């Protein structure tokens, strides 16, 4: 069964609670008793998802993080098992302590729902599933979209309708909490919270209305597959071939990219070792190289196209959704400022 998610289905109408601002830290302390809490914390001028040691570290007013929270479910480096010459294979024991991803934005939740399909449907990935089972999502609606965000165009933000255990909205004086699963309900029940007054929902809508007006970027999804199919040969691709550095950063930071490479690390005795995987990327030249050296995507334009077509065309038949959630990380991270929204609007002749 897919991990995403029976628990949603059993659960109907959201229940509303109010978490006064002053109660946020005690709430986190309480959570930390039972869960590893992973949330946005500052790293230099940027933010990263990391275990929250003290509630004060949590930076809920972040706009985006360097790597998406996917990194705690599908690790950048992950030891799958260790092995020994005499055929012994020892699987890495999955972490048993449950974890909460706290303050995850709607786009990143939507990305995890896509990963759920990719990693649990056709070829269930035991490593992903083991972690996903023990992971709660306490989401946070976006009040301040960043300059590269365009989730609004894709319906993946700034608000969230599914996929969360709890959903927070910052109302200024406190957080409106919506319950999205029985697990989420358990969480709030331990906390002795007051139910939210009805007016809190009105306040929430105001926060979101306000957020919606602040988007700088958009991606028009009308007839996207047709647009891209018609423009497989368009001068823009050649331009991108000259521009793109093939550095792979855009795919490394994408919350919906799920490719990985598998490498064996042998011990010096040459008899034992471990098998590990790490993120891989279709933007890299060696990715599409096969035996005898043939490479299916030798040219950079072919790889740039693959990235964009995969996100905007090929995901749909496989996962019934686009593969881009509009988080804007690929735009932000690109030294050449190559911008997927700009590519689409130029293909439209805008």
């Amino acid at each position, binding site marked *: 069964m897919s991990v995403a998610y029976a628990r949603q289905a059993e659960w109907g109408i959201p229940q509303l609670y109010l978490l006064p601002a002053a109660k946020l830290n005690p709430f986190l302390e309480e959570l930390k008793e039972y869960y590893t809490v992973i949330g946005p914390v500052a790293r*230099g001028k940027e933010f990263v998802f990391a275990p929250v040691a003290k509630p004060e570290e949590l930076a809920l007013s972040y706009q985006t993080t360097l*790597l998406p929270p996917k990194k705690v479910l599908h690790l950048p480096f992950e030891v799958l098992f260790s092995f020994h010459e005499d055929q012994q294979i020892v699987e890495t024991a999955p972490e048993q302590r449950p974890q909460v991803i706290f303050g995850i934005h709607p786009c990143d939740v939507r990305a995890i729902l896509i990963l759920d399909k990719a990693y649990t449907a056709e070829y269930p990935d035991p490593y992903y599933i083991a972690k996903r089972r023990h992971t709660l999502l306490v989401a946070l609606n976006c009040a301040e979209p960043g300059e590269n965000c365009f989730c609004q165009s894709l319906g993946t933000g700034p608000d969230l309708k599914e996929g969360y255990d709890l959903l927070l909205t910052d109302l200024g004086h406190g957080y409106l909490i919506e319950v999205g699963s029985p697990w989420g309900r358990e969480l709030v029940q331990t906390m002795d919270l007051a139910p939210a007054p009805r007016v809190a929902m009105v306040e929430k809508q105001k926060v979101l209305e306000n957020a919606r007006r602040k988007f700088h970027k958009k991606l028009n999804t009308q007839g996207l597959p047709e647009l891209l199919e018609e423009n497989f040969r368009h001068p823009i691709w050649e331009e991108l071939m000259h521009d793109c550095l093939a550095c792979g950063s855009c795919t*490394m930071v994408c919350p919906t990219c799920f490719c990985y490479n598998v*490498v064996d690390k*042998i011990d010096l005795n040459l008899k034992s070792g471990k098998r590990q995987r790490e993120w891989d990327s279709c933007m*890299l030249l060696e990715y599409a190289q096969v035996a005898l050296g043939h490479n299916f995507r030798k040219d950079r334009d072919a790889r740039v196209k693959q990235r964009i077509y995969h996100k905007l065309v090929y995901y749909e038949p496989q996962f019934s959704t686009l593969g881009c959630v509009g988080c804007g990380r690929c735009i*932000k991270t690109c030294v050449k400022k190559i911008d997927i929204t700009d590519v689409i609007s130029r293909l439209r002749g805008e």
Partner: protein
Amino acid sequence: MSKPRVAVYKMSSCAGCQLEILNLEPILLDLLGTVELSYFVMARRENEPGPYDIGLVEGAITCGEEIERLKKARQECHLLVALGSCACYGGLPSIKNWQPQRVVESRVYDNLAAIHSTTAYGIDYYVPVDAYLKGCPVSREELLDFIKSTLLGVRPYLRPHSVCVECKLHENVCLFVTDGAICLGPVTTAGCGALCPSRGKPCDGCRGPANDANTVSLAQTMVSYGLHHSDIARYFRKFAGMTPEFSKGAEAV
């Protein structure tokens, strides 16, 4: 089975890559349980004659005498490995290649009579090379991986892609896009674990061009950051200016 015999040769270099072999100290004894370091002038008083199974050549080739020693090394080694950036493509010694030989020599030596320096090249300019272990200095981790893979007869995993990939895997703040620093990471071969950016210093390109390095595009970005073309040339020539890719970058603007 007898242990594979390894030889370490030094050409024009700072000996930093050889030092990295010695820096393997905590596991050197384990390593010596696996291979025989038969010829290693820096570390042994007595050295054994060839043939050897693996030859690690450190340093660029900058004079006739080294060409001869290199050819001999090629003959006595089954596998010949370029150890470090100098041996791979000229490395730091190659910064002299863009000035007249005599000018460079006179900066260093008072008496030029005995100096017969030539253009600094990586070793594959003169002999066929079986593997390239890049880096200034070479990465210990990669060197070990290479030795283990060779002993097992499997292809070693030498990252061909950009330093940015490893930088991202470690979730570093990008010095280029966040701090506006010039970083050669996007066009440089990974394998060092993004050593420099992980410590807040932009990549200097010591590992040379990645497998699809678009140096021309990076040079254009450097111009937009206000760099003069002579600075851009210096960036690309510091370690690997003799490679076609970095030389294109140096001359792009």
